[in-house]
Every structure is written in C-alpha cells, then in structure tokens.
C-alpha cells in the first residue's frame, strides 16, 4: 500500500512590538520574572484592554506579503479555558473575523521544484505566560512576563505532503516575517513556534484521514523528525488494523517519538464569544494601501532580481535570499568586488562553512563583507590564486586584518614573473626525466592529462603561489619543444 502524508501547520509568531498587545507593559525578552506583567496582564479587576496599533500594522504587513485578503473589520473573541499561565481564564484571540484572510505562498524545495501552499487565515492573539515545574516544593511557578505578548497565528490549509515540504513552508514563513522585520523569528527564544496537524491516507484517496496535532515544535530539525515519526506511527497503527485517535501529541526529541498529551481530559470546549471589552477594529483602504506601498522587497522578488541582475542560478539565488541578512551581505560583497558569481560562491561556500563551524550568524561574521570583497578583488586581479585565497580567508577570520594586509604579511602574492616561473618549470623538467620520457612517447591525446603531474610539482615548488595560467602556458611550450 502506498500512503500519503497530509500536513497542515499552525505557526505562532511573536510580533516585535515594544509593548504588549493590550497593555503598555514591555515585551523585552529575558527580564526578571513578572517585572513586565502589569495589572491588565494579570487580569486585575476593573482593568480594560486597549489594542496596540503596531500589532495591527505588523499583521497587515504579513497579510499583504502572503497575498492574502485583509480583514478591514476584525473582531476579538474570548477563548475560554483555565490554566495558570492565563490569568483571565480566557485568551483574547480572533476567530470569525480575523485580521488576515485566505492567501497563498510559493515554497521552494531542495530538488529545485516549487509548490503553492494556501493560507487558511492568520489572526492576532495574546501569548500566555510560562509555567516552571521544577524546584518549587511540588508547586508550579508562574512567570507572566510573556502574557499578553502579541502573536499572529498563521494557519495553513492541509497542503503539505511531506516533512520536507512542511520545513520548506516554515522556512518561508520565517523568511517573510524576518524580511518584514515584524518578528526576530528566533526559534530558540520561542519567537516562532509551530504545531503540526498530521494525518495519513492511501494515495489517491480524497477524504482526509483522522489527524493528530503535534504541539510546540521549536526547531526546523524537530519539526521534520516529529512529522516523520508521527506519520509512520499512524501508518503502522492502521496497517495493524488500528485506528488513529484525534488527539494532541507531544514530540519527545530524546526518544524520537510522539506521545499522547491528554488521555483522560474531556474534549476542549472553548465556548468562544466576542469579547465585550473590545470593539471591532476597522481599517481603511488608505491605511492598507499605505502599508502596501511601504513593504520592503520580499524573498521571492529578491530571488528573481538576483537571478536577473547578477546572473545567479535559481538555486544560488534562493539560497542567498532565504535570510535577509545573508542577502544584504552578499549584495555588499557583489557591489564592492564587482564579481557577483565569485561573491555568491564565497558566501555560500567558505563563509557559510566558517559561520557554521563557529556557530555564528552572518550578522556576527568574523569576516566583514568589505574584507571578503577585498579578497575577491585580489583573486580577480590575479594577485592570488583561489587556493591561496582560502588561506587568506582563514587568516581574515582569525582577525589578521584585510586581504591586502594578510597577503603582504605572509608573502602570499602570486608569482606572475615569467622568468621566475620559467626557472621553476625548467627545474621540474630537469628533475623528472622518466616522466618527460613518458610524455614524449605518449599518444598526443593523452598528453594534456599528463601535464597534471608537472603542474603539481611546480605548484608545490612555488608553495602554491605561482600563477596557474602562466605555469600551464610556459610548461606546455617547454614540453612541446622537447618533442
């Protein structure tokens, strides 16, 4: 039997406002517990919420970037449930009339193909506080600093068919919100979190299977693993004659398995109703158009421009535009060096490897865009070979200064002096009598390949600093003269 996995994602994105969605308390991350939880956030009697205009502006920016309808009249509702990290006894959210309606985005897969994923809607809501369960004499400690932080919950249609597609979609959302600057997108701090709805069905079947919801996935890697392991669990269950139960499950990364979160609890009954403390929020066409006119260049547009203006491949352009910081870095290097293709290769190659090794983001790169551009300029004008360039790059990463300083200090300048190269060629030919003999006796078709040995020896003699084009030219002349 061939199974098909069906995935829909609910992504929660914390908006990068200064203050909370309904109060003037700070949203700064990492403050001492409860120092940013005011009377409104604590649900003190008599307090009233007043919505933050920036949260609406950010949500509209997101909606426009997702090619979605904007809810010009949106309504807050109460989602009623009791949990200590939610002091009001309800979460203020949107249901019937959200700020962002149906939309769609294109996702790009590793194999170079693209796919459209539909957005069901996105709504504004408040985040809850945090519960800490350790070391409180059998009690739970509650920190309400996060309570009331503005979120947009982004709900996709069940359009994804593999864990890889789900990750590509999430990366796209991450890319869009960080390009827009409406969230820092930092998954390790919970700024972007994801719940995955997963079901399986036989290929060709139209009806959806029973789904489970995997909660609180907070890294791209875990999302991929959790979806894979949950889909396999469902397939095994059905093939063994069982049935999938609709439930919420938790992914255990240590055991690489999902397990049921709520076994006995009665089904949730949130009894939504319009929040009587808040009036409908109405936005004008002018307001929305103003925001549209101020949108920054988005990943897809930037990707298309990189292909066109810099002559990059679709794959390279996509890789370079996933993160705005990477795209900006690349553009600086390309502009300053005048060599976009070399710039792309270095940013995706040596620089990416360096950042990966040192676990740094491109914003904290030990090699600045200016220094990398300087290095590329020296490759271009033949001062150094690509091979020596890697050595210079490592030195720049260690803080030894810019490319020219390193080349000078270490004496790495490429030897392009004809006399010097001729001498090295002569020396190697003189020391390699048997190879020269083989070369002379070889079939002319085989000779170009046989030159590799001599080039290698000369490079070694020059410590990699001889100009390779010149070696090839002089060597060929001298060898051919011996024929």
């Amino acid at each position, binding site marked *: 039997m061939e199974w098909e996995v069906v995935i829909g994602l609910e992504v929660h994105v914390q908006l990068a406002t200064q203050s909370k969605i309904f109060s003037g308390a700070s949203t700064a991350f990492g403050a001492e517990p*409860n120092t940013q939880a*005011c009377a409104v956030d604590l649900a003190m009697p008599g307090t009233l919420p007043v919505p*933050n205009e920036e949260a609406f502006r950010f949500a509209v920016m997101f909606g426009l970037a997702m090619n979605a309808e904007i809810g010009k009249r949106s309504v807050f509702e109460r989602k009623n449930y009791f949990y200590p990290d939610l002091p009001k006894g309800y979460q203020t959210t949107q249901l019937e009339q959200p700020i962002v309606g149906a939309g769609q985005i294109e996702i790009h897969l590793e194999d170079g193909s693209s796919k459209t994923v539909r957005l069901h809607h996105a709504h504004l809501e408040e985040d809850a506080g945090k519960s800490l369960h350790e070391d409180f004499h059998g009690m739970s400690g509650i920190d309400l600093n996060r309570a009331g932080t503005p979120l947009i919950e982004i709900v996709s249609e069940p359009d994804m068919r593999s864990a890889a597609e789900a990750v590509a979609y999430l990366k796209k959302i991450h890319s869009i919100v960080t390009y827009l600057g409406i969230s820092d997108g930092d998954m390790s701090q919970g700024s972007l979190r994801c719940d995955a709805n997963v079901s399986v069905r036989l290929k060709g079947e139209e009806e959806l299977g029973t789904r489970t919801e995997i909660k609180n996935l907070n890294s791209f890697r875990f999302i991929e693993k959790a979806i894979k392991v949950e889909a396999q669990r469902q397939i095994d269950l059905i093939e063994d004659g069982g049935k999938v139960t609709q439930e919420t499950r938790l992914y255990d990364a240590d055991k690489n398995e999902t397990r049921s979160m709520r076994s006995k609890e*009665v089904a949730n009954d949130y*009894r939504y109703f319009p929040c009587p403390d808040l*009036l*409908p929020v109405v936005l004008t066409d002018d307001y929305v158009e103003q925001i549209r006119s101020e949108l920054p260049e988005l990943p897809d547009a930037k990707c298309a421009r990189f292909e066109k203006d810099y002559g990059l491949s679709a794959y390279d352009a996509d890789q370079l535009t996933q993160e705005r910081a990477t795209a900006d870095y690349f553009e600086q290097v390309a502009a300053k060096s005048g060599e976009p293709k070399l710039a792309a290769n270095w940013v995706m190659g040596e620089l990416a490897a360096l950042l990966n090794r040192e676990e740094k983001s491109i914003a904290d790169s030990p090699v600045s865009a200016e220094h990398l551009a300087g290095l590329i300029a020296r490759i271009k004008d033949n001062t150094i070979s690509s091979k020596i360039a890697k050595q210079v790059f490592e030195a720049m990463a260690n803080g030894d200064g810019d490319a020219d300083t390193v080349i000078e200090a270490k004496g790495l300048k490429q030897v392009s002096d004809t006399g010097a190269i001729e001498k090295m060629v002569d020396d190697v030919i003189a020391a390699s009598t048997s190879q020269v003999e083989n070369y002379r006796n070889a079939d002319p078709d085989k000779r170009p390949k046989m030159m590799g040995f001599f080039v290698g020896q000369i490079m070694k003699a020059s410590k990699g600093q001889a100009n390779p084009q010149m070696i090839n030219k002089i060597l060929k002349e001298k060898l051919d003269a011996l024929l």
Partner: protein
Amino acid sequence: MAVDAQTVEKLAELARIAISEETIDEVSSRLGDVLQLVDQLQAVNTDGVAPMAHPLDEVQVLRKDEVTEPNRREDFLALAPQTEAGLYLVPKVID
C-alpha cells in the same frame, strides 16, 4: 425548558464553579429560563440585519506602541497567597 443535570455539571466543570448536588435543580431551571429568553429573541426576524460583535455600534480606538507600565512586581506579588523567586506559586500543573 430545563437544562438537564448532566449539562449543568459539565458547564460547572468548564467554568470551574462548584455547584452542590442540592442546587443543581435550581440552577438547571434558571438556566432554562435564560435559554427561553434566547429562544424568544431568536424568533425575531433578522433577515438582512448584519450581526453585531458588540452592543455599541462603535469602532475600537488603538493605542501607540509605547511602554507605559512601570514594574510593580512587589505590589502584585504581595497580593498572592504564595510566591517564590519572583514567581507566583500555584498547585502543580503538568500538561
């Protein structure tokens, strides 16, 4: 039209309200009265009338994104029955 006892118990559980056995009948008939009133309202012909999200036909005013609330943690913590290390302590909840 009374609400059955089972529904009353479920609603009480959802609302975290303790209702004693003896009062269930009374609550059930009172809730029934409320529902009867709702039935009466629903009998009104509302064809062509857009539903309202709020009894006031007004639009929400938004505030500027500014931090205006000072840290008053100690005042608030002083109101709680149990606190530690700046946290509010509650009976253990594990989801």
